[in-house]
């Protein structure tokens, strides 16, 4: 099982959870399991073509999966997957 950290803006689509334990041997499988459990997350994470949206990055531990094997990046028990969306607040 790996732990997926859900960022504040997306918690409303994941029944307010800040982290979820999921099974899966790759990042793609883990995220698929996550969005099966919380279907509302899907459209916030993926575009209509099923690709990860470009304002959302996914990290395994401290490394961006775009520089690993993307969705096929292997995960081991105890790994932490972080979903990091862009946020813009500051002046408001």
């Amino acid at each position, binding site marked *: 099982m790996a732990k997926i950290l859900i960022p504040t*803006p997306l918690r409303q689509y994941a029944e307010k959870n800040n982290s979820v334990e999921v099974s899966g041997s790759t990042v793609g499988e883990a995220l698929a399991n996550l969005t099966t459990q919380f279907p509302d997350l899907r459209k*916030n994470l993926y575009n209509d073509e099923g690709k990860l949206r470009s304002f959302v*990055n996914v990290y395994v531990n*401290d490394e961006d999966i775009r520089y690993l094997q993307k969705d096929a990046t292997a995960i081991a028990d105890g790994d932490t997957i972080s979903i990091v*969306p862009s946020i813009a607040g*500051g*002046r408001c």
Partner: protein
Amino acid sequence: MLTQEEVSRYSRHLIMPEVGVAGQEKLKAAKVLLIGTGGLGAPVAMYLAAAGVGTIGLVDFDVVDVSNLQRQVIHGTKDIGKKKIDSAEETMRDINPLIKMIKHEVALSSANALEILKDYDIIADGTDNFPTRFLINDACVLLNKPNVYASIFRFEGQATIFAAEGGPCYRCLYPEPPPPGLVPSCAEGGVLGILPGVVGLLQATEVVKLILGAGEPLIGRLLLYDALAMKFRELKLRKNPECLCATGQVKLIDYEQFCGIPKQPEPPPMSAEISPKEVKALIDAKENFVLIDVREPHEFQIGRIPTSTLIPLGDLPKKVAELDPAANYVLHCKMGGRSAKGCDVLRQAGFKNVRNMTGGISAWSDQVDPSVPKY
């Protein structure tokens, strides 16, 4: 050269070998531009002024509002209605009269950004919207100036340095902005008042380190802060070889359009909107309609319209099955944005008589019942 007055003022810096006279002279010679004098800009401006950064530029065009004071500590109650840039200058002047301040009372745009940024050594981005963040990034890439970046949302903050020599830029991290509406703004999502204090001072720390050339700058690292968990995490940021900054294709564009924000917002069909006064008339006439409040429960507690039913926007898709598609509906939220999305949810489910209360409960407070608090 430091004056005697400066030696006295900065003595706690001068006795540390990591700063010393040489470091303080670097601070004095430095020119830093702060874009935004709000939540993040407030602590950055105050501490950089206190630290003796010689020239501080401020960019803002906003006016101090009472709802700013929960976090924008550079402004006070006496400043309500004043230009933020003037109020910020006054506070900074009081903290440290020895520094030079330059006020840019404009909205940063593709037309003026390069001209404003070019005279500064370091830029600190404390803005609150995606178009300006992409604009600042691109201008910093073009001018080869480090962008000390931070952003906040509710209980979370992000900080890093973009566009430093050899380092990644904002586009390396996020090539594109989110479509409008998908990521809530602070005004809609809220922000813990203390949060920008912590995150803004991370930003100020990095500015000072860059000036001094001390320590390990936050380049190529994204620092994430979660106030509720009281945890800091660090993620690696890499320069994306396919990024516009790597291929030399950065140019200033129409950022509003890039972020999908229509030039003139298209007015919704008249039949889709209803004013608070008209809603009040419906209630008084005991017309048969359902008033749905799509805000969050904690907002509902602040103030509500007595006949309304609370169904938070996120729960609406699940609740559609329990609603009668033949009934008449009016939806409202705080300002009208979320309820417009709620109306779309109902219409897509085949509901025919769905209207959005223009301006939300905020407009209700203005036009119908001032006893409902605005927030």
